[in-house]
């Protein structure tokens, strides 16, 4: 299985090309088109069987997060499945070759079945102020397709680097981060540049040029109120 990325950077589409017997896993709701013989299975990403399924459901209900992933199988014949995120922007393919990558959960689009996705681990979520970040840990082998809101920029960090919490796509495990205030308490309260991730170490960091929550905050208040 390999991904071909088309229509980059504004409205990128990831086209997974599958050989017979190949499979590709994707974020639920990401499938745009597929060959008719491709078979889809739904599973909760953490844990196996009904237990894992119910846990996934519980988390999905309580945290408002989608933990269901779909796996698309090309059983006997080659075929393709295409995937896209909800927001405009680019898609990158990170080649996993036994190393790890920490991915901001909303940036996960699809991956080869040799890539393991772990959601239950120590650094699973980061709370800060009114916000939170969910992380997934990817490891194993195969291509990993990540989506961004806007363009994607790769930053080679060696030392320290500061990123706004809403602009992180993924980072390599040679990096650790802590949530920090920038500026004084005055800035935290009166400027929207309040909280950032400060990365330390050596490795690649991938950022997106737009912040989904900032866009939601711009458009959401102009929509009619919802009931709950």
């Amino acid at each position, binding site marked *: 299985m390999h991904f071909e990325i088309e*229509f980059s950077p504004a409205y990128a589409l990831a086209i997974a090309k599958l050989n017979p017997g190949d499979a590709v896993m994707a974020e639920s709701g990401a499938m*745009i088109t597929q060959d008719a013989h491709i078979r889809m299975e739904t599973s909760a990403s953490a844990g196996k069987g009904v237990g894992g399924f119910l846990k996934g459901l519980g988390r999905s209900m309580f945290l408002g997060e989608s933990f269901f992933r779909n796996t698309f199988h090309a059983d006997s014949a080659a075929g393709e499945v295409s995937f*896209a995120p*909800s927001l405009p922007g680019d898609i990158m393919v990170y080649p996993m070759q036994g190393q790890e990558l920490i991915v901001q959960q909303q940036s996960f689009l699809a991956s080869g079945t040799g890539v393991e996705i772990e959601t239950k681990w120590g650094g699973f979520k980061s709370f800060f102020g009114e916000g939170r970040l969910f992380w997934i840990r990817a490891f194993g082998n195969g291509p990993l397709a990540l989506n961004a809101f806007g363009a994607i920029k790769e930053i080679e960090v060696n030392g320290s680097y500061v990123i706004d919490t809403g602009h992180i796509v993924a980072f390599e495990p040679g990096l650790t981060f802590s949530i920090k205030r920038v500026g004084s308490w005055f800035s935290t309260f009166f400027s929207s540049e309040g909280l950032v991730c400060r990365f330390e170490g050596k490795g690649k960091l991938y950022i997106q040029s737009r912040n989904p929550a900032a866009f939601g905050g711009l458009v959401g208040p102009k929509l009619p*109120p919802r009931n709950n």
Partner: protein
Amino acid sequence: MTYEIKSSPEFAMIDYRLADGESVVAESGAMVAMSANVTMKTEARGGLLAAAKRKLLGGESIFQNTYTAKGGEGQVMLAPAAPGDVLAFELAAGKSLMIQSSAYLAATPQVTLDTKWGGVKGFFSGTGMFLLKATGPGTVFVSSYGAIYPKRCDGQYIVDTDHIVAFEESVTYTVTKVGGIKSLFLGGEGLVAKFSGTGMVYAQTRSPGSLAGFLHPYRPVKNNN
């Protein structure tokens, strides 16, 4: 007439040039700018009854605007509501293109629009997939949210119903769901159209529905007091 599609694929717009007396028909709201010698006439094309049926079954506006150059050449610029691409299809006499109704943008005056084919099916299956059938001779313009992924269906091909832009009349479709019941409710993949036959199918790489889904949690919460 001549036309050029500019700023494709992100913000495509049709720069349409009309000879003296020539016309182009567009969905209401599509006109961006025009030269002052172009006149606009609003009418229910094919008669009020046919237009009302298209409105009911196809979701298309009842009224369309016809832009005509008078006393010299004219220019009309036409654009859809969403950011994305515009494609032009040249239809020979009697040849048709099926268009998801919100993707229809404009057409030359001889192109006829109907909802007979498939529209009723889309309406009653509750998928929100309303189709228009554009029949030549002439040029029809369709638009997308995002880029347009053209795909030749040779046998069977599946497209999420929210992502259908247009397809050739040589393919037929049935609305179905992918995966089992569990997938339908929990997997996030909703209804899809399964195309059969040989012909081109055009899919848009983003969907207005999924953008609305992203924005929903950011809406203010209704205060019932």
